[in-house]
């Protein structure tokens, strides 16, 4: 047996720890968008929402001197933007993509305009909170349980979204309104009302993800802070097949390659530039695999695997439901 180099083990531990931490905002944002899209609405404004909420979160936390206040206001900002999308698509029957795109641009500009005076300031940060006992478990404790509330919230987001979708009645109804709203309506479900609230809920989670950036991951406000996190979250939802566990897997893979790229930039400067975009070709290959006839044969033998890997877009995504 090769003796384990204690220093190497520590590096591996720290690497996994930072992957988990780096992925947390992406996880929260993409879970929020998964919920929204599963109900049939596309909130395309994610990039703008995240930037504006990151900026307001920092501003509020800076004034109040309390990170939690920043998170609360960020959630409200995200929810408000989502409410605009929901109202214009459900109430005014406007095109969700167009409205989402315009809001993205508007929120990005608003964030850099309003946030200008905060650039370079130092604000409060989310305090670390190792979970007693659990964080003492060798390796796993350090990787999973030596974090702060934001990271724990990302775990809860994954578990709760999965549980809600697949183990509760309202979760099944949520999937129904995104799949075939007229059938849901025929069963007495208030389709548009639910869609509105799920869009707002998803938006609030996106807002929290924004705050996680300025108050935890990167600390402080500057325009390039969130590194296109919103667009990446939108892509994650699609590549993750609208399934919370697959979306989370994609987000962690993305986080891992980002961290690796950062750590390897001195050793292999060329490779480290390619690594952060590697998840996308991988996911496209995974999709090609999932849609192949070979996979369909396999899926008929293992229905559980088919459900996890082969889940598809909600059939009514992006459409307006009108009672005849």
């Amino acid at each position, binding site marked *: 047996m090769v003796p384990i180099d204690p220093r190497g083990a520590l590096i591996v531990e720290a690497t996994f720890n930072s992957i988990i931490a780096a992925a947390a905002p992406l996880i929260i944002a993409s879970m929020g968008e998964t919920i929204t899209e599963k109900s049939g609405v596309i909130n395309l404004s994610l990039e703008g929402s995240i930037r504006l909420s990151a900026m307001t979160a920092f501003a509020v936390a800076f004034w109040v001197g309390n990170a939690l206040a920043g998170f609360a206001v960020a959630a409200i900002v995200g929810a408000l933007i989502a409410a605009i999308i929901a109202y214009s698509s459900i109430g005014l029957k406007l095109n969700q993509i167009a409205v989402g795109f315009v809001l993205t641009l508007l929120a990005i500009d608003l964030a850099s305009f309003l946030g200008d005076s905060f650039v370079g300031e130092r604000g409060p940060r989310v305090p670390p909170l190792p979970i007693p006992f659990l964080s003492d478990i060798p390796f796993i404790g350090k990787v999973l349980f030596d974090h702060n509330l934001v990271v724990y919230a990302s775990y809860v987001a994954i578990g709760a979204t999965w549980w809600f979708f697949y183990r509760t009645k309202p979760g099944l109804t949520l999937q*129904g309104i995104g*799949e075939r709203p007229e059938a849901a309506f025929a069963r007495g479900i208030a389709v548009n009302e639910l869609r509105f609230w799920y869009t707002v809920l998803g938006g609030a989670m996106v807002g929290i993800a924004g705050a996680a950036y300025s108050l935890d991951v990167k600390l402080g406000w500057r325009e390039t802070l969130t590194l296109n996190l919103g667009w990446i979250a939108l892509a994650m939802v699609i590549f993750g097949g609208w399934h919370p566990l697959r979306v989370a897997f994609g987000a962690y893979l993305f986080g891992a390659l980002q961290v690796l790229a950062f750590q390897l930039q001195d050793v292999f400067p060329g490779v480290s530039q390619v690594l952060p975009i590697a998840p996308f070709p991988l996911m496209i290959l995974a999709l090609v695999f999932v849609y192949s006839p070979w996979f369909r044969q396999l899926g008929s033998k293992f229905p559980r695997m088919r459900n996890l890997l082969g889940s598809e877009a909600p059939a009514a995504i992006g459409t307006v439901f009108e009672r005849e």
Partner: protein
Amino acid sequence: MALEIRDIHKYFGPVRASDGVSFTIESGTLHGILGENGAGKSTLMKILSGFYEADSGEVVLDGEVLDLRSPADAIEAGIGMLHQDPLVFLPFSVLDNFVLGSPGGIHLDRSEAQSELARVSADLGFHFDPAVAAGDLTVGERQQLAITRLMWLGAKVLIFDEPTTGISATQRVQLFTTLKRLAQDGLIVLFVSHKLEEVEELCDSVTVIRQGKVVYEADMPVPSETLVAEMFGKIFVQEDHASIETGAPLLVCRDLVLDEGTTHIEALDFEIASGEVVGLAGLEGSGQRTLLRACAGLIDPTGGTLTVDGTDLTGASYRDHLHAGVHYLPAGRLEEGLVEGISIAEHLVLVSDDASFFIDWKKAEEVATKEIDEYSIKGRPDSNAETLSGGNQQRLLLAMIPDEVRLLLLEHPTRGLDVESAAYVWTRLLERRERGTSIMFASADLDELLRYSDRIVVFFGGDIFAVRDAAETDGEELGYLIGGKERV
């Protein structure tokens, strides 16, 4: 218990879909609602199931006036509806489809739901694999699933809207057995159909609806001719028929097999002589439209051959059909025939054979003015297609037909047109026939079929059910044939 419908009115713009409908059904009855396409049956059922709100009138169940504002209200009152296309969630499992939308708390107890599904379905004589996706079920099985669900939710009134569309003969037998069972168990079962034979086979009583009004109510059995007369109204006037010289066969179909959605046509042998006018009769979805679209080159035949004037066009593109002199006028004038947002002049430019790259607007306007005059279109060269009335849209479509056409295919050529426009359309069409053009048209208007066709082909369930010389049949017989019955 009784379901009472009192003076229901529902207007869509100027259309009176329900115009003072009243009737009463006692529990334990299998009640037929009979009427032709567009008579107002579906509107009424959608009011009962909460999809539409009535403009006025009341629905009373078991002595209680119901406040039906949404399907949720109807379900709570115990009224369940089975839609023509069963509203299931295709990728979800049978079990999830069963339980989705059911009342109760947050917790989804699948094992309890599964035993409920097993219990209720066994009661009804159905069997499901709860793990299978609903999309893998046949239409008949989806219907059974929907029935099971509604019974589980405690439905007292069940509405079946054209439930035999798209299901197999065996499933139909099974469905009818179930319907009879449900009525015997004390439910109120409404069977909505335009198929005479089904209502006669199944129902205890019947209400006939025509143009949004109840025109006839009776306990079954009732002589078929009475039902036919009430369904279509007594408007069967026989016109004198111009005899024609039948030329050589122009369109020849041999063993043609066609599939479009749920419509399947098997081994069709069919000919049209040049200069002949053939009317296609039948309920919607019986195969007329599929045949028209196949002849136009919009559907590729799954088998057999299709030739026009000796040229084999089997599987050829729409463009090749056009070149062979086949022209199709769809029923959806604005949806399929014209382009919204562009003008009369622009439409005529689109179909002109002028090969130059640039548009000569001056010439285009001259052409448009000429065609507007020739076809008496009420509009200007710059009027957009969607601003024209239905009749003027049809005139524009006529103006767009090229001069050398061998076969004209028309779907409901005068649907929605006033009498004058309809007559005008036919005058122009018959002019073409003088020049040797053959015409094949589908229509739901028996008068139109009898007046203008040389031969009438009646479709039923994807087959040619009967072929009649227009001069030797009448509206009453057609009514029977369309319903899938020979005149007794």
